[in-house]
């Protein structure tokens, strides 16, 4: 990845973070933590990797993304809006009655959302089905999916993992947002997720673990995964929950937080300064 692409992706990530914070502030509260932790992978997928067309969001041969941790909807919507799937104005309607941007990702409501998430674990099985369908139909396309570490407490994740491994779905690229927090607190204090890379490898997956906020690491991992045939791919993203919304970074209680419009601008200013953009 050259320098100009890296800089462009960093700019996109900053833009998506600002939009996400303002989007949640427009409603007054929302799932900031798990939205902010996946911004780099969203920016990378939509601006570098995936074959999508905002003008034809249902194109059969498209690459698809299933955000199984569907509560990250605000970041997904900010990304889709920046790509032109729908007007930026929609971001002000998050969670309002009649909106097309509900709290959790919903394929029946939002252009560009490829499958519904929210009942945790379910999007992951659907992603396995989509990757399988792309293979059966010889669409030559890939499925990307993002799951959470808290979500990985759901048994369905592991049912889907073993099926994808058994079916050798090498057009399936999964990302685990390993941010260490879930709604009630630190994952390590609730049901710890241990031996994570080994677990996925034992289910027949090609596994890597990287810094999920580092575009160069993401780029290298995806390129490497693309060269591995006959296995689904798991890229574990070490992330910080709420990364970029500094008041919430890594703290308990950041799953959903109240944000005022003034607080949003202060947080964006602080992020801008930290990134040397001010």
């Amino acid at each position, binding site marked *: 990845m050259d320098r100009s692409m890296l800089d462009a992706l960093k700019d996109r990530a900053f833009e998506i973070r600002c939009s996400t914070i303002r989007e949640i502030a427009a409603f007054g509260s929302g799932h900031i933590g798990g939205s902010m932790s996946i911004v780099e992978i969203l920016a990378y997928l939509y601006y570098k990797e995936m074959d999508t067309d905002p003008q034809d969001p249902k194109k059969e041969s498209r690459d698809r993304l299933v955000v199984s941790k569907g509560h990250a909807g605000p970041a997904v919507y900010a990304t889709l809006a920046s790509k032109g799937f729908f007007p930026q104005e929609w971001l002000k309607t998050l969670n309002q009655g009649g909106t097309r941007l509900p709290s959790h990702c919903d394929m029946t409501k939002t252009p560009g959302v490829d499958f519904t998430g929210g009942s945790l674990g379910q999007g992951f099985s659907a992603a396995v089905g*989509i990757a399988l369908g792309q293979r*059966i139909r010889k669409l030559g396309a890939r499925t990307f999916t993002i799951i959470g570490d808290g979500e990985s407490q759901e048994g369905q994740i592991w049912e889907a993992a073993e*099926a994808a491994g058994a079916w050798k779905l090498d057009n399936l690229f999964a990302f685990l947002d390993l941010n260490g927090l879930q709604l009630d607190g630190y994952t390590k204090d609730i049901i710890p997720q241990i031996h994570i890379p080994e677990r996925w490898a034992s289910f027949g997956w090609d596994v890597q673990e990287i810094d999920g906020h580092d575009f160069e690491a993401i780029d290298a991992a995806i390129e490497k995964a693309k060269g591995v045939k006959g296995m689904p791919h798991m890229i574990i993203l070490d992330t910080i929950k709420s990364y970029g919304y500094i008041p919430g970074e890594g703290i308990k209680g950041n799953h959903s937080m109240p944000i005022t419009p003034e607080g949003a601008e202060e947080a964006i200013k602080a992020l801008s300064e930290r990134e040397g953009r001010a």
Partner: protein
Amino acid sequence: MKDAHAYSHYRDTVIGAIVDLAAEHPEIVFLDADLSSCIGSTAFQKAYPDRFFNCGIAEANMTGVAAGLASTGLVPFIHSFGCFASRRDYDQLFISVGYTHQTVHVIGSDPGITAQYNGGTHMPFEDIALMRQIPSMVIVEPSDAQSLYELTQQIYFNGKSSYIRTPRKGINFRYTTEDRIELGKGIELRDGQDVAIIATGVLMVDAALEAERLLSEKGIKATVVDLHTIRPLDTELIEKVASRCGRVLVCENGRYAGGVGEMIAAHLAAVSPVKMGFLNVGERFGEVGNLKYLALAFGFTPENVAAKAEGLLAR
């Protein structure tokens, strides 16, 4: 239309109907959850190995995978025993299939007490009630092989998600290729004036017909309806027979709460109340036994249907 006499069990019939469809519809895929040799979906696997997937003993994932497949334009049929195909994967059916507006056809085999030797853990009494909660889900429970074959194909062309309630073993032939079998339209098998017996499924329609004969020996004329489609409810036919007889007995191999009897009672209460009786599993859980023992234990016999009908007439 194919003659279902080509088959020797209900399981061969339902799978045969899908295999025949799949010849002309390459978008049809089949998923099973380690019960393919029980339902005979191995025949689909043999015919279309690239479109068959055994998901192992993981019904929730099977249902989610089916939803994902459907979103790529494929049309999945999935199978498990009715208990697992409804209770075990319910949130997946509700969210990943129903809420997302995907089309998936679910075969729930061995409904109610027809699970026999698999016993109480395997007896789906509440599957109808669960499926009813999913908006636009079609529910069929055919009462013979010909209607099973035809309705299985009709639910595919109908295009909405569906739940097919069928026994696996045994076979009977109530209808021929000459009979009109139409999704959503119950079949009036007898048209007596005194009491209407509305029944679903092989066991109950058989019992209702024999009960009609027993009642006729006592001079009681019964109407018998084979309500092969439970949802959408054939309200036109139900209103017609209720109006004719003024008394309606609903017989189902499942639970009252949320079941067929409650559906019909709610509808008639809203449009034109009549005296009603119900035959179902009541508040019991299932238990092990052969069908003869279980039918006696649960009162699913022609004699009990007739007694219920007589009781209704006496009210």
